[in-house]
């Protein structure tokens, strides 16, 4: 029996894990995925009460709630595999005959690929259904991507000579930083036994304060002027470089978080 990784065993384990994740978290996925519908209902009710008109939420509001739902889902990740720190469920998980590598790979595939796709599909499908049934809602998020893009570009242009970012790069950065967030809260859930979400947020704030101060020391005074001049000289080029580096750093942090998750699964004790 292969002790580190067997594709056959991984397949069996992945299907098992997928069923378990769905069984234990489907309600949460429906709530996050259905947050657009909740926005729609609240929006319409408020417009009926206060303006006596039937008004559906505009595309920007629906896109904003999608962003909030992504944030909510990220926080929820601290609970998704959080059972590993519980004695009963955690022991059962660890004693299941699959290698750490297989358990880790399944957790990553489900968390980074399957759940985000399912969540996005539910959200967009419901958004599409709303716009199909209620013409006052305008175009759906998929059909209105051009509208969002042009709105985004106008916002960037309004900033003048500052940070320039293309819509494509913006989306890539959002995806990479979302993966980093998901992995961060996933790891938080595997480390904290109680207060998984609060503990993860607390540590995140602490890291933010530390790195914020370090960054502040670098870009203040002469350093700040240096960066401002550079940005003014070639806004597009420098912005792209900053984005590339920030994405690379995000990628490295994600790899570090994934490594942390692997070793947490490998060394967790009950």
């Amino acid at each position, binding site marked *: 029996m292969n002790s580190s990784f067997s594709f056959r065993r991984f397949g069996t384990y992945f299907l098992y894990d997928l069923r378990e994740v769905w*069984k234990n978290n489907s309600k949460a996925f429906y709530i996050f995925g259905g947050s657009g519908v909740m926005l729609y209902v609240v929006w319409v009710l408020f417009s009926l009460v206060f303006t006596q008109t039937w008004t559906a939420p505009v595309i920007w509001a629906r896109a904003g709630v999608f962003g909030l739902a992504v944030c909510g889902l990220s926080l929820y990740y601290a609970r998704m595999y959080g059972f590993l720190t519980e004695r009963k469920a955690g022991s059962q998980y*660890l004693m299941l005959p699959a290698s750490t590598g297989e358990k880790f790979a399944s957790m990553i595939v489900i968390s980074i690929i399957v759940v985000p796709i399912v969540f996005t599909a539910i959200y967009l499908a419901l958004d599409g259904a709303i716009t199909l049934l209620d013409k006052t809602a305008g175009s759906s998020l998929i059909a209105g991507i051009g509208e969002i893009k042009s709105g985004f570009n106008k916002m960037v242009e309004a900033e003048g000579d500052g940070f320039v970012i293309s819509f494509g790069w913006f989306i890539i950065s959002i995806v990479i930083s979302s993966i980093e967030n998901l992995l961060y809260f996933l790891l938080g859930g595997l480390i904290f036994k109680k207060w998984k979400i609060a503990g993860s947020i607390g540590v995140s704030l602490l890291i933010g304060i530390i790195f914020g101060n370090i960054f502040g020391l670098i870009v203040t005074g002469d350093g700040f002027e240096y960066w401002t001049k550079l940005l003014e000289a070639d806004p597009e080029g420098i912005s792209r470089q900053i984005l590339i580096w920030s994405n690379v750093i995000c990628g490295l942090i994600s790899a570090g978080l994934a490594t942390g998750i692997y070793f947490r699964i490998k060394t967790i004790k009950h």
Partner: protein
Amino acid sequence: MIKVQNLGFSYGNNEVLKHISMEIREGNIYGLLGENGVGKTTLLTLLCGLKKPQSGFIDVDGETPFDRKPALLADQFYLADEVKAESATAMAFAKANGVFWPNFDLERFRTILEEFEVNPLQRMDAMSAGQLKKTHIAFALACHVRHYYMDEPTNGLDIPSKAQFRKALTKYTPEDSSIVISTHQVRDLENIIDPIIILDRRDVLVNATVEEITGKLYFDYGNIIHPEALYIEQTPGGSIQVYPNTTGEESRINMEAFFNTVYKHKELIKGMFSK
């Protein structure tokens, strides 16, 4: 075979196990006895790989349990004292989990559940504590592995279920399997556990077969008081006395009396059974 060598484990400053050495051989049902807090559950979780030894080592068929390699995991089963109530029927749980144990037999699972009088189609989160325990016991036995570690398996079982458990354990485990059962309820398993391991704080007081025990100690159920008795317990019909077996005469072991004798004369008994 399971070899434990100089095993040590602490919870912070609380040293639970120290220099524990023993061998666990196939084909036996070991009874792991000891007072509360002596480290029975800790030892079981170390044996199955849920914990990592802080000193010494454990070798199970040439593997280190804490590596949690699939081959070893597929050949062992740890039945915890408190088991999880899955949000699924017993049958669905067994089908989903059984695929990971190569020798798992769903039909055997169903048969054992029937013997335990548990409906396989009942949801586990709607079961009583006893039914839930029986479902997990049935699953463990249906996995047909070589190493079983059972922590207080009769806790929560009613009197008929305890008898069913004893019957199932001897009927459905492979001949060459090694079973380690930690229990406070020695009477529940008196007739099936052999050898007996008695743990004291940080130490193994006894690791001996029933034959070895009765070869060295005599269990007297008569009314004549023996002054040399190491332990005397009054019973409604007379008494149980335990004293050194100097004649080699055979007697029937009383597990509780033996346990109390060991705890009353720790050093003497330890010296008597040290090999």
